[in-house]
């Protein structure tokens, strides 16, 4: 990377696999779909071909509301890869889905880390503005 030579952000596209296909298929339609245990009702992410890791019963795919809050976050102030240089400074948010506290979703936030705070409410969505495919974005609530 040369200083001054800023490229358009082009983050890698997620490569779905057999286990994650339902998640990404729903994502392409803009909907959040995660696995939830039929017994203990806890959410499980990332997708798994196995049983519920908390109680051992089965999992089913459920669509879920997108409201969430910030569990933790980092700022990226220095780019390592060319595809991210054009967006620096940006943040990565680990967002906890309301009602499914075991589900923590890594999301992109296109602003500096100093704009965010712990437990900040907001919502997750799937966006395509920063590279091929869709990726999880975190939108802070307006009055967050």
């Amino acid at each position, binding site marked *: 990377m040369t200083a001054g030579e800023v490229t358009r952000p082009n*983050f*890698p*596209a*997620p*490569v*779905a*696999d057999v286990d*994650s296909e339902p998640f990404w298929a729903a994502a392409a339609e803009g909907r959040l779909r995660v696995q939830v245990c039929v017994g203990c009702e806890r959410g*499980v*992410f*990332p997708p798994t071909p196995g049983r519920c*890791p908390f109680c051992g019963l089965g999992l089913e795919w459920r669509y879920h509301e997108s409201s969430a809050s910030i*569990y*933790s*976050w*980092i*700022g*990226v*102030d*220095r780019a*390592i*890869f*060319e595809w*991210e240089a054009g*967006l620096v*400074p*940006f*943040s*990565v948010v*680990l967002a906890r889905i309301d009602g499914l506290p*075991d589900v*923590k*979703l*890594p*999301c*992109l936030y296109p602003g*500096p*880390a*100093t704009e965010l705070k*712990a*437990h900040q409410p907001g919502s997750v969505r799937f966006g395509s503005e920063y*590279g091929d*495919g869709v*990726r*999880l974005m975190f939108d802070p609530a307006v009055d967050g």
Partner: protein
Amino acid sequence: MFSRARILGTGRTPFSKASGRSVLSLALEATEGACRDAGIDARDLDGVITYAIDDSIYSTSVLNALGCPDIRWFADFNGGGNQFLTSLLQAAMVVEHGLAERVVVFRAINGRSESRLGGSSKSIAARGGMQYTAPVGWTTYGRFDAMMARRHMEIYGTTTDHLGGVAVAAREWAVSNPNATMRKPLSLEDYNQSPMISDPFRLLDYCQEFDCAFAVVIGAAGTSATPSREIEFVSGVLGGGPRPGGDHWGYIEWSEHAKTFSHFLKQRLYGPAGLRSSDIDLLYLYDCFTFSVLGQLEGFGFAKPGESGALVASGATGPGGHVPVNTHGGLLSEGYGHGMNNFVEAVLQLRKEAGDRQLPRADRALVTGGATTTGCAIVLGAAA
């Protein structure tokens, strides 16, 4: 914990930015050095273990090059800091059970000039655990550990000055270590002026990669040239907590990011051996990043949850402190030997061969490997 297995010798190359040598050449220099240190013939090695993340050579290439006639054990761990001590623990088990007699554990990398773990590649395949992280920019180990550090800061009020305290203490030790790559005194002000990389991590929260190799020979008690220099294994455990992630990059589902693997290893490490944290004279905590030290000080019982930052700020972990951590400067200031240089320093101190930086109380040392969800911990003891 082992009646037979002992550490017989250690070897190393210098750290360099461009070795101009093959990884095998570095590995051979370290291995031959460890054999010389032990006073054994390198051709008598009959076991070899290494660990790598697609950045080094196959284990047997070293015994092949040395012409060792009788190979009884070899293993190649696919892992980083969380597997470095596993290699040493496995070598000890192999010797303890008589499966091999003299096993060398090595780590050799052109980590600066060829393959940087911190990430400099042009592309990343967003597959496996990375399909959820790479598309949103959550790449590289530093960004993973920064996420844990932030969580700790928000829960406990840990500050960036606390992180900086770890870097400052490491440098205070390194100043008197001729092997260290960074010996210029460092103040908290210097730390705070270093560039922000992965907020909350600044440049000085990271260790620096180098070309280097380290080797440790483990064999049966009494078989080195000087048995009084042999080091014992007092305790050793490997593991992690629930939901540690499924691959090198999957730390999404970890139950609480303010805690590290160390919390889940403490009881097994100390209990069966009848140890308490106060029995440990020296700590060699895996310190690829500053936060890794804070998390482990709490997990291994040297500070209550949330109090590690204040402990470090008090000077307790630096020269003259009562919880000496990484007395050579660690990965942060001696250089990134992927954990092996921390182990080598522990052996040196326990043998009372650390020269100017030798500490008077040096009979039990805790060495750890790992920073996030899984790892290993070993308590070493000076020869009885």
